[in-house]
Structures are given as structure tokens and as C-alpha cells.
């Protein structure tokens, strides 16, 4: 049996303190298998992004158990969480590229976190990843010289260049038009499938739902699976 990439058990989350304390997530339980593409939908304010930041080790887990890549996040030290983040590929709503770096340097920033990749290879690797997202001719451009779709593709290259087992994406198409949005998600989907990475993708965009292996729906902090294969292996 393969270990799940993400195992979430009874996770609840609160914002604020004292009388202003507000529960955002209620007893979330789900798993994501290796290589699975999960799309999470739901109205804004439903807690999708909060769940994504918990999985991404960007927030500390308050209650319940959250295992990502086999590691328990609850009570984990800041250092442990930072180490874990290096094995997750992130794609943000805005591209969040470093404006002072060229496209290939942006991709290389991600490679530098992995000391096992020799420095001599890192530029080649960054450029071949840019080629894979169709930006071979744009590698030396600065982000300000790229279109929105191109920037998002650089961000995908940055997220995937180190073959992460897990890719987290928060509305990657939000800032893009219909055509380039679809393109971007397809590139991400194809590359992740090729590398065997699991994807958790938060979106409002109905046009890309067909790429999902499974769709989960979040409403008012509670999860309802639409296309569930309920814990088939467990």
C-alpha cells in the first residue's frame, strides 16, 4: 500500500482570540494519494485557502492530525516546517515572481534550495524546465517583460523544477483570460502527471474541472466530496 501524500484527520482551525475567536474549518478529514489531481471548489470565505496553507505548512495546525509527505505537521518545529516546504511546489494566484531576477534565475531560486542538485547543472535544469512550459525563448527576460500567462508558466516551472511529490495551487487562473488560463492548467497538469506529482488545486473556474481525478467541495468550513473514491485503499 502506498502511503498517502496528504492525510488529514479531524482538522479544525480558528482565527482570532477570545470572544472574536471564529472557527474556519470543522473536522476536515480526507486523504490525497500519490499522483492524484484533486480540485477543491467552493465559495469564497469557505476556508479553501486556509486548508491549503495548512497543507503547505505555511500555518501551524491547531487541532487534529495533518500528515504531509509522511510527516506530522501538528506541533512541528518552525525548522521542520521550512524543510518540508522545500518539497512542495507552490503556484500562487498572483505569479509572485522575483522582479529583479530573469526567468531562469527565478526557476533557479527553487533549485538552490536543493543541495543535492549540483550548481553546474542548475542553470541547464532551469532552462529545460522553461522549455517544458514553452518558454525556451523567454528564459532571459525579466518578469515585467512577460505576459500574465507567461509569468504564470514561469511560476509553474519554478514549482515543478525539483520534482515535488506535491503541488499546491491557489486559483492559478484567476488573473488570466480563458484561453491562457486553460493552457496554464493543462501544462501544470501534464507535467505533474509525467513526474507523478499529486496536485491540490483551489479554483472557481468551472472550465478546468474536467482535469481533476477528484473534486472536493468546501462550504462553510466543511468538506463534501463530489466524486469520491472513499478511502478505497484504507
Amino acid at each position, binding site marked *: 500500500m502506498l502511503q498517502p501524500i496528504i492525510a488529514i484527520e479531524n482538522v479544525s482551525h480558528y482565527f482570532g482570540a477570545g470572544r472574536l475567536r471564529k472557527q474556519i474549518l470543522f473536522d476536515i478529514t480526507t486523504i490525497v494519494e500519490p499522483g492524484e489531481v484533486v480540485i477543491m471548489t467552493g465559495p469564497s470565505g469557505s476556508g479553501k485557502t486556509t486548508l*491549503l496553507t495548512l497543507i503547505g505548512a505555511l500555518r501551524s495546525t491547531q487541532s487534529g492530525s495533518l500528515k504531509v509527505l509522511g510527516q506530522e505537521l501538528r506541533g512541528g518545529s518552525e*525548522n521542520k516546517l521550512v524543510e518540508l516546504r*522545500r518539497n512542495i511546489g507552490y503556484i500562487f*494566484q498572483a505569479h509572485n*515572481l*522575483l522582479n529583479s531576477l530573469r526567468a531562469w534565475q527565478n526557476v533557479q531560486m527553487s533549485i538552490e534550495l536543493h543541495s543535492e542538485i549540483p*550548481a553546474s547543472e542548475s542553470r541547464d535544469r532551469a532552462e529545460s524546465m522553461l522549455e517544458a512550459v514553452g518558454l525556451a525563448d523567454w528564459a532571459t527576460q525579466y518578469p515585467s517583460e512577460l505576459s500574465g500567462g507567461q509569468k504564470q508558466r514561469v511560476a509553474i516551472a519554478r514549482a515543478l523544477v525539483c520534482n515535488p511529490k506535491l503541488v499546491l495551487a491557489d486559483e492559478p487562473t484567476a488573473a488570466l483570460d480563458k484561453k491562457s488560463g486553460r493552457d496554464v492548467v493543462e501544462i501544470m497538469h501534464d507535467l505533474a502527471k509525467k513526474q507523478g506529482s499529486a496536485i491540490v488545486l483551489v479554483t472557481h473556474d468551472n472550465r478546468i474541472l474536467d482535469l481533476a481525478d477528484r473534486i472536493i467541495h468546501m462550504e462553510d468550513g466543511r468538506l463534501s466530496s463530489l466524486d469520491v473514491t472513499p478511502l478505497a485503499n484504507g
Partner: protein
Amino acid sequence: MFAIPLAWLQLKRETIRLLVALAGIGFAVILMFLQLGFQDALFESAVTLHQNLDGDIFLISPQSTSLIAMKSFPDRRLYQSMGFAGVESISPIYLGFGIWKNPFWEGPPTSQTRSILVIGMVPGDSVFLLPEVKANQAQLRLTDVVLFDRASRTEFGPITEKFEALKATGGLVKSEIESRRVEVGGLFNLGASFGADGNLITSDLNFRRIFSDRKKGLIDIGLIKLKSGADLEKTLERFKQNLPGELRTDPKKTTNQTQEDFVVGDVRVLSKKAFITLEENYWKESTAIGFIFTLGTAIGFVVGTVIVYQILYTDVTDHLAEYATLKAMGYKNRYLLSVVFQEAIILAVMGFIPGYILSIGLYNLTRNATALPIAMTLNRAILVLCLAILMCVISGSIAVRKVQDADPADIF
């Protein structure tokens, strides 16, 4: 350390901001260089005379505080010291400020007269280390002949030029000092100080002719030369034992210092080093000058710190989302802190270079305008570079607190 020099790339990307930052830091560096340079020039000029005196031990009156405030003392003490073992020779030195009349005066608004330091010496003695004085001091045997310092301020008149011009025809520059006619018999190079705008050397006899109220037996500095191989400390100890009167030392000074600086009866005995220190301390501690220049340097430092802080803070704020992204990717706080500090140090070094070059130019300008011995020294360059780096590190450490605000959870 990092394949991608993020700090440098970020600075380079904002060219205008980088130039403004460098201008600001360069300005602070220049300010510090000028203040420290003026201060050093002051102390340097104040002791140029001391450094060029050809002696090992000096006697002065205990009431003398600096070259511009000398009290004379009886030359008996100097002749007594001639008898101490180790002493090779002695020379009396007379000092006085006299009013010099510019013989080439072109009328108002400039003033025709100006106060100049007159140094009287025995023409046969070797008092100065300056070769030009040695070469010309035979002239001083003549009545009313003086040697003129060509590094004196220009207000004394174009003595140097006229001297050279007249020499060809056998003429001499004639002027008046303290209303007595004198002739310039030669030139030497010593330099103006904050205390004296110019210098004249003449014989002891001529000195008393110029300052007719000075009594014969009273001198201002007693210069003592030791035999080659004589031990300075042991000889000073003999002065301590054998000069008449009570031994007094400054209780605030260390034992080492009091070995080279002590008062016996009516004279103060100093080694050359202590004599120089006495003059420096007078300007440093008992005038406002040391304080003013230190304050000026501190202000340059503070101005620089504020400018660098502003630049770094804006830079961090602009890149906050990017820093949060880096944190989300798995970069540690330490990496981001190192980026900010690298930026600070790059700014410090890059701002220092134009500041250093411009300061050398300003030093030249000042030297030509004031005849003060001001020049770039390696020590000062290193000091200011260290101050500039410290300045940037301080502002960096205030600005990095902002980096902690970069919260990766906010960017999803």
C-alpha cells in the same frame, strides 16, 4: 555562497534608487572624511614645529600650555642640565608673536599687518631638522635678518615669489616686524597651524632686538640633545633627581607617562613624544575644536544611517511579497536577513568609493586654500570605511525587522 546574488540583483534593478542611495552614503562619507581630516590637520599642524625640532628632551615652564601660550623660564635650568650624563648639547629657543607688515600691500580692504610666530635660536646650534634652515642659518648671524616660512598664509604677502625674483638681482625682501626693519635672508618650509598663520626664524639676538622688552635670561623652550647611545629614560631620571626643587607629577597620568612628563621646581621636563602629546592634548581637550569635529563626524554618521535605513526599508517593503514567496518556497529567515545585510554592505562599499575620491579632491582644495597639512591617510580611509559599513549594518539591522513581517500565509 549563493549562485544567484539576489542582494546585488535587487539593488541593480532599481537603478535610480541605487544612485540616490550611493549619493547619500557618499555624502555621509565625505562629511566624515572632512571632519576627521580637518581634525587631524589641526593636530598635525599644531605639532609640525615640535616634530621638526632636533631634540630629545625639552624643558618648558610649568605654566606653558601650548605653543600659543608659552611662559618663559630662566635659562639657568637649561645650562644646569648640560652637566648631566648623557646630554650632548643644549639650545635655548625663544618664541613670540609679532606683527608682520606686508611689504607688497596693495591697499584696503586687506589688512597690511598680521601676527606671525617668531622663533629665535642660536645661529650656531642645530635646532631644526629642516635642511633649508640648516643651509641658511648662517645668515642669521647678520643683524635683523630672518628666515621666512614659505608655507605661511598668503596674507603675509608674496614673500616667496618676490624673494626668488629679487635673488637673481642680488636684492633682498625688506619688511617690518614689530615696527623693526628686517630682511628676509632665506626661506624654509614648516606650515601654518591653527595657532600661527606663519613662521619666522631668526637669531636669539635678533629676537631680542625685535621683542625689546624680553629679558636675556628668559627662554621659552629648552632643547636638549642626547649623546648617541644615551638612554632616554635613564637621562630623564637624572633630570628628576638632580634639578633643584620639588618633584611634581600629574596624578591622572600613568607611571609610564610621568616618566616622560614631570615638573621639577620651576621647569617641566618632557620627552619629545610627551612634548607633542602635550600640544595635541591642549587642542583636543582644552579647546572646543576636538569636540566640534567629533560632533561633525557623528552627525555625518547619523545622516548616513538614516539615509541607508530609508533606502533599505523601502527596498524591503517593495519586496515583501517576494520575500514571503521565498519563505513559502522553503527559504529560511536567515537567508532573507543575509540578503538585507548584503545589500547594506554593498551600499556601504559602493558609496564609500565615490566619497573617498571626492574627499581626496576636497582635501587638495583645502590644502591649497588654507596651507593646512591635510591629506588622505590609509588609517583614516580604513576608519571611515569601517564607519560606513557600521552605518549600513546598523540601518540594516533596523530594516530587517520588517522582513519578519513577510508572512507566507498571507500570499495565498
